[in-house]
């Protein structure tokens, strides 16, 4: 149902168009605007009343004037979904970008996405082996988890995300993930990097890409992740796929939100971001998970770049309050030439406890993880002290821990971009590295695991 065309625009401000005297228009309804030069733009209703309707225009309001025609499309934003999506590249508004045909819809799904009833969820507890030691040991990923990468500009978060996408698998299973990739305001270069990597490894055939680049309309970024998640939900919960959603860069998404808030003259929250940004982000992140009696799952890997490397900035801060942990990329480690430069100390996987151990990874995983973490944390702290008092002032234990922190970075963290370590390899490596420390200082290791796995006892 499409209605008549209105020419009642009164105001245009930032990404918003205000018009009056229309038939009743629905909240959230989709809108097309026809400019006098024939250009078509799209938008969505943000506020509606008998007298006034506010429309947010995805493609920006350039060239819109009071003569532009506005048509209300009679429905909220929906994405045509079918398994034909797999292997396709779409733009940030869901239109083919790969020269291929329109998606033939099995059904049309509302992109806002209803909340999963908490009672209907199933707790995620299947360990995903990423082959990246730092993640598998210290911040284990679980199928159905939302685990963001907190990075910053100039750091290799894309490499890490791609390496995870390539290598992620359930231990002892060859079930594959479908990758839903969502680009929001990233550069063409970054996008090409992703695409060619997916192409190179053949993953593209098993992927759906939604692409909004830096020079694409900023406001469109509000809907791009919603399209991606709608596709993901369809594939996971209607078609039983395990879906890995990678979206980047959340910072651009949040900036688009801020732009709309400013144009509406809303009272801004911290750093000018809207007060409802927490809720808005939750409506994306909470679309991860597993549902009782359904076979598929959605695992999310959002990537965000922390402005000014500041983890207390509202974007990482609000994200961390919603996601189930975070993987923090460190500029310092990157500058030391270490890949992947993951700082395990502020990183966390909240769901790790439920997915590691005898039945899933290995019996000594928790103990080894705690000990590696503690030894590294202490070693790092000693670096600060050594800078003041000098290495000679350290006792034997501290000397060993200090040395270990270097080894941890050089031998444990460091791996190549195509090095896929099994969890057993990772754990064995840990034992080898820890054997440089006297066992009496390894207080977090259970004696029974020392007896079984310590290189001294294994020979």
């Amino acid at each position, binding site marked *: 149902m499409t209605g008549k065309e209105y020419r009642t625009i009164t105001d245009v401000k930032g990404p918003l168009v205000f018009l009056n005297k229309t038939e009743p228009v629905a909240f959230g309804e989709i809108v097309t605007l026809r400019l006098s030069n024939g250009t078509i733009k799209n938008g969505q209703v943000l506020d509606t009343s008998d007298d006034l309707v506010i429309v947010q225009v995805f493609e920006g309001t350039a060239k819109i004037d009071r003569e532009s025609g506005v048509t209300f499309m009679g429905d909220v934003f929906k994405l045509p979904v079918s398994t034909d999506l797999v292997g396709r590249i779409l733009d940030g508004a869901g239109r083919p970008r790969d020269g291929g045909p329109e998606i033939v819809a099995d059904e049309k799904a509302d992109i806002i996405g209803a909340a*999963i009833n908490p009672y209907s969820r199933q707790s995620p507890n299947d360990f995903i082996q990423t082959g990246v030691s730092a993640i598998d040991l210290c911040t284990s990923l679980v199928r159905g988890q939302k685990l963001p990468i907190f990075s910053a500009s100039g750091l290799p978060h894309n490499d890490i995300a791609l390496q995870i996408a390539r290598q992620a698998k359930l231990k002892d299973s060859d079930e594959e993930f479908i990758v839903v990739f969502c680009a929001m305001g990233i550069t063409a270069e970054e996008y090409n990097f992703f695409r060619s990597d997916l192409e190179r490894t053949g993953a593209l055939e098993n992927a759906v890409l939604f692409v909004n680049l830096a020079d694409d309309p900023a406001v469109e970024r509000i809907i791009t992740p919603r399209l991606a998640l709608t596709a993901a939900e369809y594939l996971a919960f209607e078609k039983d796929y395990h879906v890995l959603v990678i979206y980047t860069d959340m910072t651009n998404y949040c900036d688009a939100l801020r732009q709309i808030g400013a144009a509406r003259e809303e009272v801004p929250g911290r750093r000018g971001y809207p007060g409802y940004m927490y809720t808005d982000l939750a409506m994306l992140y909470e679309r991860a998970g597993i549902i009782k009696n359904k076979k598929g799952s959605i695992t999310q890997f959002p990537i965000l770049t922390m402005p000014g490397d500041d983890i207390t900035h*509202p974007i990482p801060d609000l994200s961390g309050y919603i996601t189930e942990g975070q993987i923090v990329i460190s500029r310092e480690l990157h500058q030391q030439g270490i890949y992947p430069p993951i700082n395990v100390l502020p990183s966390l996987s909240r769901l790790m406890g439920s997915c590691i151990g005898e039945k899933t990874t290995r019996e000594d995983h928790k103990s080894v993880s705690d000990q590696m973490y503690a030894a590294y944390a202490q070693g790092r702290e000693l670096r600060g002290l050594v800078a003041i008092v000098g290495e000679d002032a350290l006792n034997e234990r501290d000397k060993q821990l200090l040395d270990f922190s270097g080894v941890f970075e050089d031998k444990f963290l460091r791996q190549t971009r195509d090095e896929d370590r099994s969890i057993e390899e990772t754990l064995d490596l840990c034992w080898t590295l820890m054997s440089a420390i006297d066992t009496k200082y390894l207080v977090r290791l259970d004696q029974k695991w020392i007896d079984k796995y310590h290189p001294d006892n294994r020979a």
Partner: protein
Amino acid sequence: MNNEGVIYRISGPVVTATGMNAAMYDVVRVGHEGLMGEVIELHGEKAVIQVYEDTSGIRPGEPVLNTQETLSVSLGPGLLTQIYDGIQRPLPTLEEEMGVFITRGVDADAFDLEKIWTFEPQVAVGDEVVAGQVIGHVQETETIVHKIMVPPSVSGVVKSIESGDFNVTQTICVLDNGTEMQMMQKWPVRTPRPFQQKYAPETPLITGMRILDFLFPLAKGGAAGIPGPFGSGKTVTQQSLAKYSDAQLVVYIGCGERGNEMTEVLDEFPHLIDPNTGKPLMERTVMIANTSNMPVAAREASVYTGITIAEYFRDMGYDVALMADSTSRWAEAMREISSRLEEMPGEEGYPAYLSSRIAEFYERAGRVETLNGDDGSVTVIGAVSPPGGDISEPVSQGTLRIVKVFWGLDAGLARQRHFPAINWLNSYSLYPQSLDQWFRDNISQDFPEVRTQISGLLQIESELQEIVQLVGSDALPTDQQLTLEVARMIREYFLQQNGFHDVDAYCDIHLQYQMAKAILSFQDAAKSAMAGGAVLNDVVNVPARSDLMRGRFEKGYIDIIADMVKKMTDEIAETVEEN
């Protein structure tokens, strides 16, 4: 003007209606789908409504119907073990009606209205009954007797009373003035339930967490705030409180937080045993889950729904504990609605009435003499999620002004994996004075003094640490080095407690006291050994000390701790001879 109006405007969760007779807080049905909403502002003939369900697709001109009721909860047998959304719709019923995704326009009874309960009258024909009086009992779960009370504002002489099997809507008692009573009653969520008087709290809520019970105790009927940045342990602490605290009933509100965390509680609680009663935990629990992606207006309502249920059980004479995780999300819901109303914002965009709403909420905590003369309490523990972990923001500050207990979570401690990551230097409880008598009478005469010694040692440690940072610990005199060792023992053996450990997650209060004494015994033994010439390193490394410390991970520790302490002090004494 009548009960029906039409929609004039829709802006997210806020809808304006015209042409309708409305009063503040009336519950209305919005649009063709009849979405539930509540009148929150009146402007001339316009009524502003916050809608508890998603409003996309709704149009101006659609009808609005005023039910003339105020937002209320249903109270009666069937509440326990339930999990509700913010407006008391059971999530299992929503699943049946809507499938696994929460859509809209579905009404659901708060509990099964047809279910038959066995009602045992406690009054007889001819008895005079007053508001709040218990007229009968229902054994709702194995642990909880649900007391059926005369609703507040009703009284009279019993004309007839039933006994036996009834559902919650059948009349079980009639008064001479014609009032008919059922097992279910309703109460408006925004109005505190009445009581006779508030008492000063004098009994601690024992939580089984050493740092809380020992250093910063909370009273039954008190209020506590737990602020902390993400990942510092708010949720784990709240869940531990729900599992182990010695409240008789627990209302757990997941307010604007993660879906999976509620799923976890739902998975776990039915299999967990209440350490205080030995019965399944679920039987004393009511849950409310309005997660971050569920409608914000219902999130705003969820804390009121929860506290009204808590007060209702309090009125039966129970000690109820309510956890709200997180009150910041509730405050943000208020902010979001307020900004849609274009209200004049206060600090950080929050409405000017933020701090009074917070105060009113925590004021609903308390230990009271109920209308029926019984003694009941509601203890409130609110998590606070300050942006960037900085508690100078309005929600933290509004909370700290009203609560008497502050359990400050610390990102640094969490990063060191020191859990619970409660900062012992800046946390506080203003209750010890009123609770000390209880601790003296029930645990040990010298309990408060032991606490003072333990916290004193931690204080001294923090001062010594500053010096150590500059010169290293070897430069300190040996007595101060010993103090550092004792403090380390307090931290690692006493304060740290893994919330997921099979045994140590819950620590009996008597055992807590013995563990604290064990630390002081170590200190005394070490001091005298060192006075006799023993070396600190030998004293610290006696094997019996690490046995003592590890003992807490084994069941039955309380039975052997005294022997272990004896063994440790003996071994320490022997270190004198070695020299």
